[in-house]
Structure formats: structure tokens, C-alpha cells
């Protein structure tokens, strides 16, 4: 098959400790290899930066709530559209792009793997239908389990092994990749229009607490040896003072770390990093959270950066979305899912002049800059909650250049600027560190052995950026940084050039990753027997129809894991 030789680029491959070395990368049959023949196509990457393709660990790109966002906002699409070409389908963007446009735009930016972080199991067939229609990039989805009735009941009855078997069965049934927890217990309380405000509060009727749910699922994650830690959107999102809940949640699973590895991934921490007691005195809780992360090895986070634009918030945190509606009086979609979870969508505009939004902007950056180890940080905007993923280059520029931050700091609400620690932070991310937080660390966290690096055997997913590393002063030249990360010189996916200078030149179908965990047959069988009765009582579909066949995924990548039971 086709061979490519990427010549003379400055390579950044943190998983293999390569830090800007000028070297060649060899591609054959869709993989990185040691060498190629003279027939290989040569890409001259002189004076360019070569990185593994971006791996986005948390971006709302597919499924029921995303589509609800699309339907809610025709006015969002009308201002940003893509005309069809010989190679590409047409579509629309801005904050809730259509599926084809999503794949193309990620590819143009050099991203080659993206995970949908919140799929309600009952509706995951919908998520897969959309993922199938997102071209080029590899994908997967995380299953929402933090408000699942069966899990809460297993927890109450202390049936750990049986619950592990249930989670294993469920991930397999819906072809999910990881355990996602959103507002544990809180979204179930919202099923009655109620809320949960601290970790030891009991969920109505189920009488378990958020802390217990998080610990329980963390244990199950360990038992099943799932590739990614529990992925947690903590309680009290969006509430002043919530950084305390965030740290408490992190602390709740400290003793459950396996081999010193992360036992929890806390997501879009910006939204959960508020200090202060009201909107008027809102402050950044990033220093406290960063301090905790610096002292504890078992936590990793993604930041959920705000980028100051008109965007669309969407989460499985139904009650939070209602509060956002009350604050903004915007349009509001709510979609509770039986026995499982909920969802909410509310358009939102982040303004530099708004005190709260400006503090939020500061929190995201402070988190990334104050946590010392970049391997614990993943760069996200929680697309589209903090801003569309097409704004990632802005975030990279802010992280790499104090000057870029200052430019924005001078435009934001003055009280917020005074309140934030950010102006006094000098740290600037290096390209190596950017490579870590946008691909190496995320791939490692997801347990994707062939992604996020350019070692022999890795998938040939490569991003070549028009950045003259040697002559670059990122601190000053942040505009060049932004420009370079907006569109690659080349994006290569599975060894094929798919994008060149902002144009998609070839389209393809990406793979859908899912985890096939196996538990002992007798435990599985006994779990299923007990499950059948309850299943049909709680749901309105038959168990057989809940299950999604692998053939549904069109291009499936099954990751086998062996559980402890």
C-alpha cells in the first residue's frame, strides 16, 4: 500500500520523549514504520512542526442532545455554512456543526481522534448513527452511568461483582468506551425537579449518595480494567463556591488509585472551579484545585476553557441547564432519559465585559498554568459549552504566550482582571507541552496505545503545522501560533493525506472505538437473569432491542479488556 516519507520536520512526540528534534517519519500501510522504499511519496516538512494527530478527549459532537442543539438553533447555522465540493459534503457550523462539517473541520485542524463524552445508553444507537456520519476522524463515546437506576440499586444492596458484570454488559451492549458520571445522583433528583447540593446528600428513593456512586463506579472501573478512568462531571457545576465539591470528589477516590495511576478524570473543571459565594463576588478556585492536583497523583483533568463567543451549552446535567435558563432566559431544551440520565441545552454568549464570564475565562487558563505536570492536563473547551472546537488555536495561543493573555486581559471586565491571579502568572507552555495536552496525554489517558504518538506501530495519524519552530518566539508570535493551529499544512489519517492547507482533499470513514470487557460467565449469566425482570419494568423497550450489534458501527474497533472477576 502507499508509503509516505515526512522529511525534515521538527517532531514533537512526548510519549517517545521527542522534543523538537529534526527527524523523518515513515508511513506504510496506515502505520508508522521504521523505513520506506524509494517509491514513497515525500512530504517536505522542512521548517514545519510535526505532531501526532490531535486526540480530543471530550467534545460533544454526536447524539440526541447534540442534535437537539442543532434543531434548537437554525439561527446558529445560517451564519456559517460549507458548500459541497467534489470531495466533501455540504454542511453548517458554528457552535453545533452538522456531522460532515464536524469531521472535516477537526481534520483541517490536525485532529484525528475525538470522543463524544456523554451518551445516554438507551439512545446510544442515535450516537452511533451520527458518529458513522462524521468523516475522517476516529471516534468513541462514553456511557452515562452516574444516575443509572440499576447501578444505584446494586450499590444500595452492595452487590459489587454483579454490578461490575452489569456495567461490562452495558458497555458491550451499547458499544461504549468508558464510564461517564455527570452530576451523580443530581440528574436523578432532577427527574423529580429536585437537586442535590452536596456529596453526602441522599438521592430521593434510591438513598445512595453522590460520593458513594463515584467510589462505586471507580471500583468497578478497576475491576473491569477499563482503559480510561471514570470520567466525572462533578456535582454543583456552575455554582459559586463549587471548587470545594470538586476537590472533595477528587479526594473521594484517592485510595482507589491502581499502581499510582489516575483513578479519576474530572472534566471541564473550569465550570467546577468557582470560588466566592455569589455571582457578585465570584472568584477563581483554580489555585486551590491546582494545588490539590499538584499534590496528588491520582487526578487528571480537562479544562473546559471559555473562548468568549456565542455558543450552545449542552450537558447531561439537566438541573444545571435549567438554572442557566433561569439566569439567561434563553431558549431551553430538557430531555430526561428513563432510568438513566438527563440532558439540557441552552444557547449562551460569553462576553468579555461580563464579570462572571471573564472570571470563567481566567479559571480555565489558571488551571492549565498552575498545575505543574502537563500530563495531568487535557486541553478542551468542552465543545461547545465553553466555545466551539474551532477556537482551540486561541486557547493554545493563550497558553503559550503571556502577551496573548495580556491582550485579552486588557479587554475583559476590569473587576475580573483585578480578581484573577492570571495577570501575575508568567508561565508559558512550550510546543512540547501543547503536544502533551492535546494528544499525548489524552491518548495515554484513553488507553489508546496506537494514538497520540509517532513511534513505530502507531496509527499513521499525523498533523504537520506551518510553524518554523527554530525561528519561532511563541511568546511574541502568538498570532503565528493561532494561524498555524487553525489549519495544518498536512493532516494524515491512517497514512492517507486528507487535508492540505485548510482544504479537505480526501475523505474517509473513521473507526468507532469501543470496549469489550469480559467477566466470568457464571457471574454474567446470573446478573442477566436478575436483570431481565427489572429491565422491562423500568424501561419501555425490550432488552434485546437495547443491544447494538457491532455491525452497526460500520467500522468498528473493539478493544478487549479482561476483568478481575
Amino acid at each position: 500500500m502507499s508509503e509516505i516519507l515526512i522529511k525534515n520536520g521538527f517532531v514533537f512526540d512526548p510519549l517517545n520523549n521527542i522534543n523538537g528534534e529534526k527527524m523523518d517519519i515513515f508511513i506504510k500501510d496506515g502505520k508508522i514504520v521504521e523505513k520506506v522504499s524509494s517509491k514513497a511519496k515525500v512530504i517536505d516538512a522542512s521548517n514545519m512542526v510535526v505532531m501526532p494527530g490531535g486526540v480530543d478527549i471530550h467534545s460533544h459532537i454526536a447524539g440526541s442532545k447534540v442534535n437537539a442543539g442543532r434543531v434548537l438553533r437554525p439561527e446558529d447555522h445560517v451564519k456559517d455554512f460549507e458548500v459541497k465540493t467534489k470531495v466533501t459534503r455540504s454542511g453548517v457550523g458554528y457552535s453545533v456543526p452538522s456531522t460532515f462539517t464536524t469531521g472535516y473541520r477537526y481534520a483541517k485542524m490536525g485532529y484525528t481522534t475525538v470522543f463524544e463524552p456523554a451518551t445516554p445508553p438507551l439512545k446510544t444507537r442515535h450516537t452511533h448513527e451520527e458518529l458513522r456520519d462524521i468523516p475522517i476522524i476516529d471516534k468513541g463515546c462514553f456511557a452515562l452511568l452516574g444516575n443509572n437506576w440499576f447501578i444505584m440499586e446494586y450499590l444500595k444492596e452492595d452487590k459489587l461483582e454483579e454490578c461490575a458484570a452489569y456495567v461490562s454488559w452495558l458497555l458491550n451492549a451499547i458499544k461504549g468506551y468508558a464510564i461517564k458520571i455527570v452530576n451523580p445522583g443530581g440528574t436523578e433528583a432532577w427527574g423529580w425537579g429536585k437537586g442535590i447540593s452536596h456529596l453526602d446528600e441522599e438521592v430521593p428513593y434510591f438513598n445512595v449518595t453522590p460520593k458513594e456512586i463515584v467510589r462505586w463506579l471507580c471500583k468497578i472501573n478497576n475491576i473491569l480494567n477499563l482503559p480510561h478512568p471514570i470520567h466525572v462531571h462533578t456535582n454543583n457545576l456552575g455554582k459559586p463556591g463549587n471548587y470545594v465539591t470538586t476537590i472533595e470528589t477528587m479526594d473521594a477516590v484517592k485510595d482507589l488509585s491502581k499502581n499510582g495511576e489516575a483513578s479519576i478524570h474530572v472534566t471541564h473543571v473550569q465550570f467546577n472551579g468557582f470560588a466566592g459565594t455569589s455571582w457578585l463576588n465570584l472568584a477563581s478556585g483554580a489555585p486551590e484545585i491546582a494545588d490539590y492536583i499538584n499534590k496528588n497523583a491520582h487526578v487528571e483533568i480537562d479544562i473546559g476553557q471559555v473562548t468568549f463567543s456565542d455558543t450552545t451549552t449542552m450537558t447531561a446535567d439537566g438541573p444545571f441547564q435549567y438554572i442557566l435558563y433561569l439566569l439567561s432566559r434563553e431558549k431551553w431544551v430538557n430531555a430526561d432519559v428513563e432510568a438513566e440520565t438527563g440532558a439540557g441545552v441552552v444557547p449562551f454568549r460569553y462576553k468579555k465585559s461580563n464579570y462572571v464570564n471573564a472570571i470563567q475565562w481566567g479559571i480555565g487558563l489558571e488551571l492549565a498554568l498552575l498545575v505543574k505536570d502537563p500530563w495531568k492536563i487535557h486541553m478542551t473547551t468542552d465543545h461547545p459549552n465553553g466555545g466551539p472546537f474551532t477556537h482551540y488555536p486561541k486557547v493554545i495561543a493563550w497558553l503559550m504566550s503571556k502577551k496573548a493573555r495580556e491582550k485579552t486581559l486588557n479587554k475583559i471586565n476590569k473587576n475580573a482582571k483585578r480578581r484573577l491571579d492570571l495577570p501575575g502568572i508568567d508561565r508559558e507552555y512550550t510546543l512540547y507541552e501543547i503536544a502533551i495536552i492535546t494528544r499525548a496525554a489524552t491518548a495515554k489517558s484513553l488507553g489508546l496505545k496506537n494514538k497520540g504518538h509517532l513511534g513505530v506501530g502507531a496509527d499513521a495519524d499525523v498533523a504537520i503545522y506551518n510553524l518554523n519552530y527554530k525561528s519561532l518566539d511563541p511568546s511574541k508570535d502568538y498570532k503565528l501560533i493561532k494561524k498555524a493551529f487553525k489549519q495544518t499544512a498536512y493532516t494524515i489519517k491512517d497514512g492517507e493525506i486528507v487535508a492540505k492547507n485548510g482544504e479537505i482533499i480526501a475523505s474517509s470513514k473513521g473507526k468507532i472505538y469501543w470496549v469489550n470487557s469480559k467477566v466470568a460467565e457464571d457471574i454474567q449469566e446470573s446478573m442477566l437473569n436478575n436483570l431481565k425482570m427489572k429491565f422491562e419494568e423500568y424501561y419501555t423497550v425490550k432488552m434485546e432491542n437495547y443491544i447494538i450489534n457491532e455491525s452497526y458501527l460500520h467500522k468498528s474497533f473493539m478493544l478487549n479488556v479482561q476483568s478481575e472477576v
Partner: protein
Amino acid sequence: MEKIINNVVCTVCGCCCDDLEVKVKDGKIVEVKNACAVSLSKFQNYNGKERIVKPLIKENGEFKECDLKEAIEKASKILAEAKYPLIYGLSLTSTEAIGKAVELAEALGGVIDNTTSVCHGPSLIGVHDVGLVTCTLGEVKNRADLIIYWGSNPIFSHPRHLTRYTVFSRGKFRRERGERKLVVVDVRKTATAKLADIFIQVTPNQDYELISALRMAVKGEEIYLNEVAGVPTSKIEELADLMISCEFGILFFGLGLTMSLGKSRNIDAALSLVRDLNERTKFLIMPMRGHYNVTGANEVIAWQTGYPFAVDFSQGYPRYNPGETTTIELLTRGECDAALIVGSDPIAHFPVSAVKHLMKIPVITIDPHRSATTLISTVVIPTVITGIEAEGTVYRMDGVPLECKKLVEPPLGLKSDEEIINEILVNVKKLKE
């Protein structure tokens, strides 16, 4: 040879009941359990005398049988040459087929629309302005103690709705009928109204006024009038109290609201009412989607184009404006010059002004059965029946996706919608080069 296929998804109405048991003997369906009367009627009659088994092309006013290749070539030529072709129907097939139809509309530079335009289009338009506070049907089954049907008569339109999902269902938190209240608002005492604990008769075309008054009552504002829309104010206030004091209420609404005076603004008002009720209690709303995959059509068209129906690709990218790009209006203004109808019978159902234009332009129909629309078509391509002769994905009225099974083989030579549309697409692409 006899076999029983369990957990079959019914492909008639938006309930998408998935507990049907179908007995197949010698390749034919001989018995169906758990199906309602409407569903049973489909299973019993789908292969009747109206079934078309050979493609037809109209020449000199007469239909001639032809082979599939010829029919597809003729259809492709008509569509490829059109300057503003329309693809319509699509609510009675799988999302896989509809997705292909979107691709075809894009290749043609035409408009793709589905039956939403004549049904719950106003609901979607209302959602664009207000949003939608909703849930899946299991939430209703498990939690609802107040169920309202407004302008909807499920006993006729969605026969198992009450048993599977609402007042007669058995949920985790509501075990008995007595734990729930049923309210029906309609212009006449329908079969569903006869089962209601409270029936409110609204004067036809005054639903908006009634919702307006209800919103006032929920807000605690005084209504000066003694009566609104034929309903005594005291009764309106009673209903408001019921709504505020329930634990979990749900408002189902149908064409009584979407197609009476006010249309999308009736829905706007209902959506706003339910939204505002959430300041007092848990309250949700759900449109009673009619066809078994009209919801799916909106879903797939939306994720592929950004817009849920009425998408215009004439300039190479999706554009949407109901009233401008919707089928009835396009036809009434006489703007389309060719049409592909998939699984629908617009000649029988559309307003005369739209029908008149549809009869002037070349029409290609893909349908398993003869209809008024196939009668006036230039090309008729028979197809298989989704959910019986072909598998495919469908979306229940609450957005829950299900996979339909293939139960029996179709008559020889028939292809699925997806395959036929794909073949037209391949031909069209060649012609356009």
C-alpha cells in the same frame, strides 16, 4: 417451516411498540401478538392487491411495466435535469434510507422535505423559538401522576399509548391507575376523552386563548373574563391548580394544536406554559409524532444538514426557512419542476393548490402500494416494506432509536428504499458530470 420472531418493532405509529411477536410460516406472516388493531391491519393487508411488484413508466398517458434499471435511468434523468427538484415523503422508511435521500438532494441541488411539513412542523418551529422540556416515555410510565392529552386522540391514533406509556401503564413509582390523573382537552368528546378524569371542551380554533389563560392562572394572575375559549374560568383555574400541585406532569399534544388556528404559535404557547410550570413542579411536554419514523427523518436530516426538514440544497449548501422551503408552499407557488415522492401520498392529502402543481410536473414515486400519487406519476418504483421486509433504524416519538427487523423476504426483485435511492444517486452523479 414455522418460526416465532420476538421483540419485533411495529412500524405504524410513533409508539414504535417493540414487543410484537410475529409467527412466520413458509415465508409468510401468519400471526402477530401484542399488535393493536391498526398494526394488525398493516400486517394483514400490506401484501394485498394494491401491492406493486413491477416498476412502471408512463408513456403517452399509459403505464408500461419495465425493469428496474430502465425505471431508475428515467427517474435519474428527470431529476438530474430539473432546476429545482423536490424530494418528499420519507417518514415511512428507515434513517439509513433518509440519509441517502439527503445525499441525493444535495447532488441534485434540490429540496428535501418530509411529512413534518404537514404535521408537526409547527412544533419544530415553536421549538426554534422557545425550546422543549421533554423526556423519554419511560419517565412518564415510571413517574407521571398527571397526564394531559391536548388536541390528540391516542385511542384512535396511537392505540397502545395509554397502556404502554401513560395512564394504564405500570411504572416504578406509579403502580395503579388510581395514582394518576388523566385530563383531555379537545373540541369534542373523543374516545380518549371518555376515559378522562377531567375533560375540557375547547371551542375550535381558540386553543391559543385557552393556553394564554392557563398561563395566567399558573402565574397566579387574575383572569377577568368568566370564560375563555368556551371554558369557564373556574375550570381553567382548577386545571392550573392540578398542574401546579402534581409531582410529575406531562402534556401530550397532537394536530389539534399544530393544525388549528395559530399553528406554531399554539405550540409556542404550550411550550412556554410547560417551561414556566417548572418553576413550580416537574412538568414536561411531548408532541404525539404520527408516523413511526417521522421523528427519525427529522433527526437524520438535522444531523446531516443542521436543519430538521425543508432543506434547500439548490446553492450547494443547506438552507432552511419553513414557509419558503417547505413542500406545500413550494408547490402552491409553483416553484418545483420535478418531484421524487418516497412512501407518501401527497395527491390524496395535500391542499388542492399544491396538488394542481404536482400534477403539472414529472413525478417519480417510490412506494410499495398503488395510490393517487402513483396514478399521476411518470415513473413508479415499487419497494419493500421497512420493518417487515427490510431492517432499518427508526426513532420513536420520544427520540429513542430502535432497530426494525426483517421478518420475511420481499416479493422477488424488489429493492429497499435505500438501495433504490442509492442507485438513482449514482446515476445522477454520472449525469451531472
